[in-house]
C-alpha cells in the first residue's frame, strides 16, 4: 500500500517521484445565488502527480477547476499555493503565477495560426516593455526568438509540426484539443489544469491524448489536475482521484482505493446487480 499522505511525498508503483503539497484546497464552498455548487471540499495536489477530479454531471468538477484557475471566487475556504494563502485574484493573475489550463469547450484564438496561439502561452515569459515592443528594439526581438524556440520544442513534442501555420478555425476537433494543450504547456506551468481533455474524441484521439498527458508528466514533471468522464482513462492515468457528487467530496485516494469505496460505487458507478 502506498503512503500517499506522507509529507515528503511518495514513489508511485511505476517508480515516479511525487513531491510535497503544491496546492491545498481548504474547506471550499462556492455558491451561485441559492445554488451550492461546491460544499466544504478540501483536498491537496502534490508536486509531480496526476490528480483527477471525477463525478457525475453537475457534480461541481468544472466549478472546482474554475476556483483553482481564479475564474470563480469561493465564498468560503482558502486556496493555499506553494505554502501561502492565495489572495482573491483575477484569472490572468493566477495564470501568471504558473497555473495554465484548457477548457471543456475549447477556447482557442480561432482567427490566429497554431503557432501564434501557442506563442500567446508564453506571454508572461516575455519581459520587454511596450516601447521596446513597439520599436522592435532591445530585448524585444531577442525574446521573440528565444520564446519561438521553446514553442517549437512543444510543437515537436506534441507532433503538430505539419499544422504549424494553419489557422486554428480550420482544424478538426481532436487537433484543436491538442493545440490547446500545447498553448497551456508553452507557459511552462507549475500546475496544468485540463478540463475534460478527452471529451468528444474518438478512441484513437483519446489514446493519443492519454499518451501526451503521461509523456508531459514524465518529461517535464508537470503537476496535472484533470477532469474526465471516461472512467477507464481516469483509472489508468491518475495517481490520485477526488470523487465529487452534488458538490460534495465523497471519495479521495488512489484509483484502487476509490474503486473500492462504497459511496463512490453507489453515487457514480452505480450499484452492481450481479
Amino acid at each position, binding site marked *: 500500500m502506498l503512503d500517499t499522505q506522507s509529507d515528503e511525498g511518495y514513489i508511485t508503483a511505476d517508480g515516479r517521484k511525487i513531491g510535497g503539497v503544491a496546492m491545498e484546497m481548504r474547506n471550499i464552498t462556492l455558491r451561485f445565488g441559492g445554488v451550492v455548487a461546491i460544499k466544504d471540499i478540501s483536498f491537496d495536489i502534490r508536486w509531480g502527480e496526476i490528480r483527477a477530479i471525477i463525478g457525475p454531471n453537475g457534480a461541481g468538477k468544472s466549478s472546482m477547476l474554475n476556483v483553482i484557475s481564479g475564474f470563480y471566487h469561493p465564498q468560503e475556504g482558502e486556496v493555499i499555493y506553494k505554502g501561502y494563502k492565495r489572495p482573491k485574484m483575477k484569472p*490572468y493573475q493566477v*495564470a501568471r503565477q504558473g497555473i495554465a489550463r484548457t*477548457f471543456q469547450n475549447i477556447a482557442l484564438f480561432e482567427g490566429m495560426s497554431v503557432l501564434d496561439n501557442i506563442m*500567446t502561452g508564453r506571454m*508572461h515569459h516575455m519581459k520587454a516593455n511596450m516601447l521596446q515592443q513597439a520599436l522592435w528594439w532591445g530585448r*524585444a526581438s531577442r525574446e*521573440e526568438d528565444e520564446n519561438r524556440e521553446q514553442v517549437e520544442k512543444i510543437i515537436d513534442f506534441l507532433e503538430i509540426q505539419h499544422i504549424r501555420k494553419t489557422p486554428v478555425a480550420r482544424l478538426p476537433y481532436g487537433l484543436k484539443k491538442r493545440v490547446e494543450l500545447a*498553448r497551456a504547456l508553452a*507557459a511552462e506551468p507549475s500546475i496544468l489544469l485540463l478540463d475534460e481533455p478527452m471529451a468528444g474524441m474518438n478512441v484513437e484521439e483519446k489514446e493519443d491524448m492519454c499518451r501526451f498527458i503521461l509523456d508531459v508528466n514524465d518529461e517535464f514533471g508537470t503537476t496535472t489536475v484533470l477532469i474526465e468522464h471516461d472512467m477507464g482513462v481516469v483509472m489508468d492515468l491518475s495517481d490520485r482521484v477526488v470523487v465529487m457528487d452534488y458538490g460534495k467530496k465523497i471519495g479521495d485516494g488512489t484509483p484502487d482505493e476509490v474503486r473500492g469505496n462504497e459511496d463512490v460505487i453507489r453515487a457514480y458507478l452505480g450499484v452492481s446487480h450481479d
Partner: protein
Amino acid sequence: MPDNLLFAMEATLNGLTAGVMYALVALGFVLIFKASGIFNFAQGVMALFAALTLVGLQSGQVPFAHLINAIFGTRIHHFGWNMPTLLAIPATVLVMIGLAILVERFILKHLVNQEPIILFMATIGLAYLLEGVGDIMWGAEVKALDVGLPKGMSGAVDDLTFGWFGYGFYIDRLELWAAGIAAILVASLTIFSQYTKQGRALRAVADDHQAALSVGISLRFIWVLTWSIAGIVALVAGIMWGSKSGVQFSLSLIALKALPVLILGGFTSIPGAIVGGLIIGVGEKLFDFYMQPIIGGATENWFAYMLALVFLLFRPQGLFGERIIERV
C-alpha cells in the same frame, strides 16, 4: 488623350486621396470593434476632441476658461505662450491615453459581458459627453489648425501631368501628405499587431476573452491599449480633417461618412477599412463627374450611403469581413 478621360483620371486621383481620409476614421472604428466587439459611436467625436485639444495646447488656451471665469469672476483665456507643434502632439497623445484610461475605468469595466447594443448605447452617451466636455474645455468657435503640413495645389503633380498630357491635375498637397501618413500608420499598426507580444495579446482578446485570461492577459490593460491606439488614430484623422476645413463641431459628423466605408470593408478588417475608404472616395468623385450633367450636383452627400445600401443587399459582411455562417 480626350479631355473627358483626363478629367476622369484627375477625379479618380482626388477620390483616392479623399478616400484615405475616410479610411483613417474607419480605421479607428475597426480597431475598437475587433478588440472589444463595441461599435464605438464616439470615434468621430474623439477625432474632434483630439483636434480641439491639439489646437488648444498649441495656442496656449486655458482649458475650461469660460467655466473658471463664470465661477470666479476672472477674465483668463490664454496662458500667453504658444506650444510648439512637436511638443503639442505628444501632449495630445497623452491626453488621449488619459481618456482611454477614464473610458475603461468608468464605462467598460462596469459593462463587461453586456449585450453589444448596451455597449453601443454607452458609446453614444460617451459621444455626447465628450462633445460637451470639448465645448466647455476649449470653446465652441471654429479654430484654424496648422501643424505645418503643406497646403494648396501640388506643383509637382501639376507639372508632371502637364508634361505628360498637356493638362495639369489639381491635387491638394495636404491630401498627398495624408495618404503618406495613413500608409505609415497602417504599416506600423500591422507590424505591431503581427509581430509583438502586445499585438498578439490584442488579437487574442479580440478572439476569445476567456482564453485570453487563461494565458495571463489582462483584459482591462488591453482595452486601455486599444482605446489609446484608437485615440491616436483619431488624433491623426482630426489633424488631417482639421487642417483641411478647420476644427469645428461638424468634424464629429465625419464619423457618419465612415459608416458606409465600414459596410463596404467589413467591421473587422483593417485592409477592408482602407480599401473601403478608397472605393467610396473614388466612387463618389467619379459618380459626381459622370452624373452631374444628368442629375445635377451634390451627389457626394448621398452616394456613399447608396453604395452601402447596395452592399447590404448583396454582401452584408463587406468585402473582407468574416463570413457570416449560421450554424444550426
